[in-house]
């Protein structure tokens, strides 16, 4: 997928620019009321109603073991589909759609932290930024302990 010129939806997590293939994205949401799910894994922020469908929200900061967002900051989410179920990936900000040339793609640097490395499919060199391509399937494969 990253080897061809792909269109990505960019998002930021703790100031890091990330990208999700636009084909995986069903929707982009602003602040949405969440229902907490007791006893759920900490990464699961809750569930929300997206036009009659129940969407499970996953806090990507928690998933990537990043420090929690500052209080009062409004967070957005990217809705992805996996196996017929919808998931909202809670991020700090959803940015523009980019289409970097495949030549700008690099494999994960060996020094990338283990957590990032496990969810990154590779890196794109954009102007002034590096964009981490997130592995949506990995992000959503929350196996209960």
């Amino acid at each position, binding site marked *: 997928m990253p080897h061809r010129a792909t269109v990505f939806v960019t998002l930021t997590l703790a100031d890091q620019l990330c990208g999700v293939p636009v084909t995986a994205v069903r929707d982009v949401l602003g602040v949405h009321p969440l*229902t907490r799910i*007791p006893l759920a894994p900490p990464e699961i922020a809750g569930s929300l*109603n997206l036009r*009659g469908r*129940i969407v499970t929200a996953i806090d990507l900061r928690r998933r990537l073991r990043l420090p929690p967002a500052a209080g009062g900051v409004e967070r957005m989410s990217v809705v992805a589909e996996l196996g017929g179920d919808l*998931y909202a990936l809670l991020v700090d900000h959803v940015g523009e759609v980019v289409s970097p040339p495949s030549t700008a793609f690099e494999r994960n640097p060996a020094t990338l932290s283990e957590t990032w490395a496990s969810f990154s499919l590779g890196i794109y060199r954009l102007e002034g930024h590096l964009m981490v391509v997130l592995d949506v399937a990995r992000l*959503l494969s929350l196996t*209960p302990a």
Partner: protein
Amino acid sequence: MDDLLAEFVTEAGESLAELDAALLKLEQAPGDAETLGRVFRLVHTIKGTCGFLGLTRLEHLAHAAENVLGRLREGSLVANADIISVILGALDRLKLILDGIRLTGAEPHGDDASLITALDDVSAGKRSEAAPAEPVSKPESAAEDVAHEPEAPEAHVAGPQTLRVNVEILEELMTLVGELVLTRNQLMQIDRMHQNSAYVVPLQRLSHITTDLQEGVMKTRMQPIGNAWNKLPRLVRDLSHELSKSIELDMLGAGTELDRQVLELIRDPLTHMVRNSADHGLETPAERRAAGKAETGRISLNAYHEGGHIIIEVGDDGRGLPVDKIRERVLARGLASEADVAAMSDTSLQRFIFHPGFSTASAVTSISGRGVGMDVVKTNVEKIGGTIDVRSTPGAGAVFHIKIPLTLAIVSALIIAAGGERFAIPQISVVELVRTRADGEASVAGSEPLIDRIDETLVLRLRDRLLPLVNLAALLHLPPVHREAGDCLHIVVAQVGANTLGLVVDQVFDTEEIVVKPVSPILRHLTLFSGNTILGDGSVIMILDPNGIARLLGVGASGVAEKRSVTQVVGSQTSTDRTSMLLFRAGMHRCLAVPLGLVSRLEDMKPAQIETAGDMLLTQYRGKLMPLICLADGLSGAHGRGGAATYTQSAELSASHPVLVFLDHGRSVGLIVDEIIDVVEEQLRIELIADRPGVLGIAVIAGRATDVIDTGYWLTRAHQDWFIKSAPSAGRQPQILVVEDDDFFRQMVVPILSAAGYSVTAASDGEQALRLRDAGERFDAIISDIDMPGMGGVAFARQIRAGGLWSQVPLIALSGLDEHSAGRIAKDAGFTEHVMKHDRGALLKGLERHLAVNAVAA
């Protein structure tokens, strides 16, 4: 119209429609043997069924048509347009008659002679193939024949009555209806916020239509439960051969309908249970004969609707569940400690059969006994939001009771809040809602449920039961909501299998029809939730699974409710006497006991027999009025002597009440209780003295903490004058010493004597009593047990009579022995009189007499 006829009409209508097409095809290809064969069979079937149902007109017509088709099939006639027209004419007539049957339930009158003649002519070959078509099949002639039949305008639109629809389409429809219900709920919610909106009326209409549509679609998915049973007769027959048992299968309520999805899921558990009943439940014919039962064992299935649920009972009249074997197995597998098992009721023990891997079958047979039995059944039943329980009577069989929702798609649920979040609890498991004071203070009325604490465990005392309480917010690891002192606690009493537990919630909202949606796969491991849904206000909420809660708490086969607080032993001595105790229940007091010797009779009274006079309850008993006391109210401190007010409320709930009758001096009093539990013979140890009026104390009877009631108190309450005649008229209260080693009898005698106006001192043995004498205590009479450890009654009497302060004091002997032997021993030892234990009348009379004698002498 009976079902058979209706079915025939439907079927025949479909056959005729098929015939039409087939005949037209035949007309095109007269030699098509396959089509001919099909046409012949269809007509033949109609003819056969008509004969069976006694529909002569149809039968004759069909018969004539069949003859023609027979000839065609043989090849002795070749189909041409003329012949086909004649047959089509017959078919049209058949349709007309069928429409008549559909409308009136009977064959309409009419003459088919011309048609039959035409058919017969064809089959006899009288009509040459080239002959022009006679007008038999023409509408005019048909109209002639029909003319004198009853007007039937709908007759012409009669089409097939049933349709085969792909299940997937129905499933899809159901999903869409589910979405529609949600959207409707959302619209209604919005509408509630906007007063006087122009949408109110159309919205109401939309709401009604949605409900109707939902019901309609639900109906399309409904199937009779008999569909899940149809393989059982064969199964039972095979099993009876395999096991050499004679088994009869009874199936009741096979027409009870439920959602096909539920039906599919219940099929296997039911089959398994029938298998189990045949294998484990029923005895061999020889065993049955020996037990005095009919050789043929009976397995019965019964299904019926009850309050939006379907109840299925699978029972047998076999040996019942082997409690002893279960107990052994529970201990062997370490599922419960010996002490726990000893304290468990048979019912609780029997529920262990639902434990994973639990099987008592000694041998693994091909049928069952592999230990993958009832727990799987239970899991499957719970998966569809149902509950299962078992009732078993040794020697008489066992009945499994399954309660499942009619449908899984849309359920009625109670919306509650806990820890700041809202949750839905399926209505199926909600028994009742209770509101009580958070501080656990007893209310004056005594009718409010109470919250008690055993160690750290909260329990709810609700009427006659002790329910484990679960704080939902804490269970879900949600922050507790701040409560003001004196705030009310909301408790949802939920039924989980045979267990009942109380869920403490912050708020109770409404019930709502919710569409159950499965939770996301990444949340499936949370067994606490059975799904989630979207409420009318658009918010997502989790649906709690009470079974999951019970699993999390470990309220399994045993149940927290079985636990009782361990009371501290209050310096008691143990008596070796065994006493027959009557165990019973009354109100919220779980287990009460009274010595059987004090009970004169046990009666069963219907509410109609119980009358009220003022605030007293009365009944006519053996030609006299007998005061009644509702023990439950009495114990909870309700006002009024008889608790008449509360009784009348509860009376409607119960067909009849057991009444304990106490007789004395030709007077009687009845204590109304809820249920007689048992009679046990046990050593009685009162371990905790209760300070509640009417209760002597708490003893461990049959392994359970039991309140022993103070009969003297209740008798006094019923007849305020009960003891008056035996009580001293005035002046100084006579001093009585009671020497009795048995705590219970000491506890019982003291209040009786006090109530009779005596001042009573008690000693637990002879030595203790003699120390009182040496201390210079004076008594007007002494009552002593004869049989006591240490210094017995006889030695004690001899000591007293030997001289000293008490040598002249009347001395009454108490014993459980019979009058003659004990009486003589007592007299020899120096007792003034001997009285049988429990004979309160004789004791009081004796005291009265001796004290009077003394008074005269003084």
